[in-house]
């Protein structure tokens, strides 16, 4: 019998992308060989090898930093700010023109559903360039103090969860403020950064302004520790962030860190339950939960707990897990075998510590890295799944009785990146938002992003902001 709600496959064609069998580093406007052992990047949905990518050694990174320094001193620094802005406008337009290509490539390399790469990652990346383009010749009016000047060469290390978008968050403000960059994409997701290099060429961006060095942790370390880097920007785990902060200690380098999170998503008893459930699902299962600001701790008021959980389970049952390029897919592949192992391990710990695991009936593809959407109930604040960042489609449910208890539990974490509030009462939204120690608070919504809106953490979720007027400060000398 045909189920009324069965979907026919609706795959996006991958013919729009042309993945080369191998890629070099992008240094001084040219693709060059790396001196390290090349590594393979795979499609996490199929384990198919997509391409072989160059690995940058210390010497390669040094060449990239020199190129960036030259470009800063001779071309990009002295350039009329309005012209810098025009280059960024060009890049924004090129990203829009080639949006579908970027979206398909991102889903292939990362495993995220095409619906998200097409509707979120790529349009937002273009928007970040468009937004920052306009700042290039208006920095004197940014309210960051008199005569803001670029820092020089920015070394930037980005994660695998939003490869192109994180590139945009890093590169756009750096260039708009007159800096040049050496960017290291994540080892498992280098391809859209390399396609971005092609966009830089199409934009006629002067050589050396953007350099892309691929590789693993050692390459990142070389970027961070290079003596001629003036500014380090990192997005990734708190553990690596800590080691970077130690590495730049005692130097003149400026540092911004966007690290882990364990966001509380607080549902009060007067919340519109259906909307809240949509927000909970969006908050923790979008991008397979590979989101630093994911709403991974659901704090639900005791009186509506059963209703919320029942509704949540019903909704999760309708999520479609599978082929990332299928336009109907809600949950794609876990980015790597390593990440899958971590999610499995923490889930097992969750059960072992006494929480109840629930997963919908869900068939996982045979090849590739997959984990079904998972809800843990009866979670105590001491459980590791309530404290550690899982970075996967795993929700931990805790309860509270009073607003004070909700705030206390929400703040009971070493992180402070984001939080959510669901209630119909406006005064409660403002009071709770005021007391939450988190950099971004979404009320009656979740996981919204915009280039005009500053993003970044409190506490051990890092420091500095990305986006908005505030994000410019990280790349300007003397900014206050």
């Amino acid at each position: 019998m045909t189920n009324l709600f069965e979907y026919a496959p609706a795959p996006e064609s991958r013919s729009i992308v042309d993945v080369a069998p191998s890629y070099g580093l992008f240094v001084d406007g040219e693709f060059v060989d790396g001196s390290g052992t090349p590594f393979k990047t795979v499609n996490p949905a199929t384990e198919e090898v997509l391409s072989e990518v160059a690995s940058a050694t210390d010497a390669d990174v040094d060449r990239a930093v020199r190129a960036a320094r030259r470009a800063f001193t001779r071309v990009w620094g002295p350039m009329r700010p309005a012209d810098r802005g025009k280059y960024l406008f060009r890049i924004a337009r090129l990203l829009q023109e080639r949006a579908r290509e970027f979206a398909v490539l991102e889903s292939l390399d990362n495993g995220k559903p095409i619906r998200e790469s097409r509707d979120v990652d790529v349009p937002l990346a273009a928007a970040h360039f468009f937004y920052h383009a306009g700042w290039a010749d208006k920095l004197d009016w940014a309210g960051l103090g008199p005569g803001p000047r670029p820092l020089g060469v920015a070394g930037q290390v980005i994660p695998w969860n939003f490869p192109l978008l994180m590139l945009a968050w890093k590169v756009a403000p750096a260039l708009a403020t007159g800096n040049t960059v050496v960017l290291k994409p994540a080892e498992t997701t280098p391809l859209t950064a390399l396609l971005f290099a092609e966009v830089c060429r199409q934009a006629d961006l002067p050589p050396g302004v953007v350099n892309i060095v691929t590789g693993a942790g050692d390459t990142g370390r070389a970027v961070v520790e290079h003596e001629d880097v003036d500014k380090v920007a990192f997005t990734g785990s708190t553990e690596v962030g800590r080691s970077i902060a130690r590495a730049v200690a005692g130097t003149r380098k400026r540092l911004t860190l966007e690290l882990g999170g364990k966001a509380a998503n607080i549902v009060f008893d007067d919340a519109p339950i259906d909307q809240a459930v949509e927000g909970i699902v969006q908050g923790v299962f979008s991008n397979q939960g590979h989101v630093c600001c994911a709403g991974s701790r659901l704090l639900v008021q005791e009186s509506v707990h059963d209703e919320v959980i029942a509704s949540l389970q019903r909704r999760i049952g309708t999520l479609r897990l599978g082929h990332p390029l299928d336009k109907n897919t809600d949950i794609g592949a876990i980015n790597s075998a390593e990440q899958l192992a971590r999610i499995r391990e923490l889930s097992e710990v969750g059960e072992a510590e006494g929480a109840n695991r629930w997963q919908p009936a869900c068939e996982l593809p045979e090849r590739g890295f997959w984990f079904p959407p998972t809800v843990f109930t009866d979670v105590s604040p001491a459980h590791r799944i309530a404290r550690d960042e899982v970075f996967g489609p795993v929700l931990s449910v805790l309860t509270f009785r009073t607003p004070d208890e909700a705030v206390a539990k929400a703040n009971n974490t070493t992180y402070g990146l984001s939080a959510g509030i669901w209630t119909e009462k406006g005064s409660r939204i403002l009071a709770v938002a005021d007391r939450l120690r988190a950099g971004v608070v979404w009320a009656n919504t979740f996981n919204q992003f915009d280039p005009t809106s500053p993003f970044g953490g409190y506490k051990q979720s890092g420091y500095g902001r990305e986006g908005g007027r505030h994000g410019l400060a990280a790349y300007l000398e003397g900014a206050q």
Partner: protein
Amino acid sequence: MSDRLAVRKTYKLYVNGAFPRSESGRTYEVTDARGGFLANAAQASRKDARDAVVAARTAFGKWSGATAYNRGQVLYRVAEVMEGRHAQFCEEVAAGEGLSASRARAAVDAAVDRWVWYAGWTDKLGAVLGGANPVAGPYFDFSLPEPTGVVAVLAPQRSSLLGLVSVLAPVLAGGNTAVVVTSRTRPLPAVTLGEVLATSDVPGGVVNLLTGDAGEIGPWLAEHDDVDAIDLTGAPADRAMELERLAAGSIKRVVRPPAEEPDWSADPGLSRLTPFLETKTVWHPMGL
């Protein structure tokens, strides 16, 4: 001159609104610029520093939750009460720093005026540093500055009052609470400032002043998990890197020490406020 024998003051720590001696029982001799005896100051210990952090954390909720207007009035009150002790501060600064009477007076004047400057900032930071963000969607989205939390301050070693006020007042103006290690060799104006703070409606625990050695206490504060930020201005030059590395353990915000102690009479701008402020962004949908 009166032949009356003066009543001397015992210089103690200022922690949680009270004036305890160091739990360690240690003191050290403080001399004037020519080496003459001034007092025995309490030499704060690791335990004193930890007690101070607990006090600062406990005081944070009330101080950060006070209205900006209220915080401004309290900081202005500090200036008022300090003004009344002007002569005493001049005497202590002149003795400790070896300044002429007129230069000591200028330093004290500037210190009082600095409180006034920051008192006036409390209720303007939100407008100057925050605002509405024009996002591309049906949402109202705004950003506001909020205090970072508990800030450890290694105060300048040379400028014992103006330097101290210049690093402390901005921490308070933003709504943070502070644990301060004062100048080691010139700690006396700091203790007198504690007496001013204690009588200016600054709630106990908001400011904690530890006299002693930043080289000894600094590392404990730098690695303390309940300290959110550290100002290394008065750190020994050869220890700054170590302190910054320790601070990385809990991702503290760090203000690095300047190459040499700056001229504290210069206009500080926002440079000492923003390092201890976080930006919070709140989103809400718009719809009928």
